[in-house]
């Protein structure tokens, strides 16, 4: 039993040199938080980066479940930044819309002021 476990570990070490990676629980938590936050500001899978983030997070959780911790960490790190970029893009887009709206109002106000005077 113990020997079998040793062989499994040794095989993993030999193949990837990464079996010593601990489970990336903290990174996964961070990534989930980043994905939730991006969703909260309105990022959907229509935003390419958001789709990447949710797909990679799902893959990272699966890898974590099958103890491929290194792969889980790499995917989770990428997904975190994908989500942060998606969030930033959505916020920028929203501010752009607000800007367009206030500019429309300013044009309208100028027009009205011209009419009254």
């Amino acid at each position, binding site marked *: 039993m113990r020997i079998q476990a040793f062989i499994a570990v040794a095989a993993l070490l030999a193949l990837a040199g990464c079996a010593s990676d601990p489970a990336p629980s903290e990174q996964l938590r961070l990534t989930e938080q980043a994905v939730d936050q991006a969703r909260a500001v309105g990022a959907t899978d229509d935003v390419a980066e958001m789709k990447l983030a949710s797909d990679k997070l799902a893959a990272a959780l699966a890898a974590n479940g099958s103890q491929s911790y*290194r792969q889980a960490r790499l995917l989770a790190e990428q997904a975190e930044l994908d989500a942060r970029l998606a969030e930033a893009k959505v916020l920028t887009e929203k501010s752009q819309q607000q*800007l367009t709206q*206030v500019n429309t109002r300013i044009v309208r*106000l100028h027009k009205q002021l011209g009419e009254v005077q």
Partner: protein
Amino acid sequence: MSLSSRLGGGLVALGCVGLFGCAAHESPQVTVQQASASLQKVKDDADVLRSAPRDVIRASESLSRAERLASYWGTRDDVAQYAYLSQRYSEIAREHTQLVLNKEKLARQDLERQRLQLALRESKLNSVQQQGKALEEQFVSMATTETDRGLVLTLGDVLFDSGEADLKPSANRMILKLVQFLQLNPKRVVRIEGYTDNTGDSEFNLELSKDRAQTVADTLVDLGIDEKRLQVQGYGDQYPVEANASERGRAMNRRVEIVFSDEKGVLGAAR
């Protein structure tokens, strides 16, 4: 190439393919070069350095790591990983910068909007004073009535030219009253309903009624009423208040009605 390095490369490749099938497919050098170019671009941008310095630092740190690792064997995945992260941080820096710039612009434009709003209100007040009381009679069609839909204010045809959606200057007085009322009753919301007579086809009338209602709403917003308090609805030639047979009847039917909510902001259902 020596046998050992070839063997080493083979093992690394095996490790890559076997355990990490998701790294960038281009060679890591290309990814690093791309990340480096992106970083250089944001570093050259004074706005980015001012608005998102932390993102730039992170992009820079990740890139250094990728470059350092690139000189070792067996680090292909890590090189690609840090190059990817660096690239992302550069992109995030760019977005954050745009956001900051937009917000600054928004603050400036908002001040300008407020300034214009005040000027508009003042000039409308002036024009009302100039028109004096002679106009009073024109507003006989403007009356508030209690109906089953709640309190309703009718703005008659006198405020619009036939077939036009622009408010005539004679509407100023009533609009200002409405603004004053809404400012004194900040919880009340209104539904602005447009109606037309039955001249012309009904699709055109529906559009015209919507446009008229929207014009009233826009003017209220221009004078400082929060647009969240305003609903706009066009009914075309439906719900006439008089028979469309006479010119007088048609004039009565060309109107905008303002339906007020109760003091708590609860509005009756739309027709």
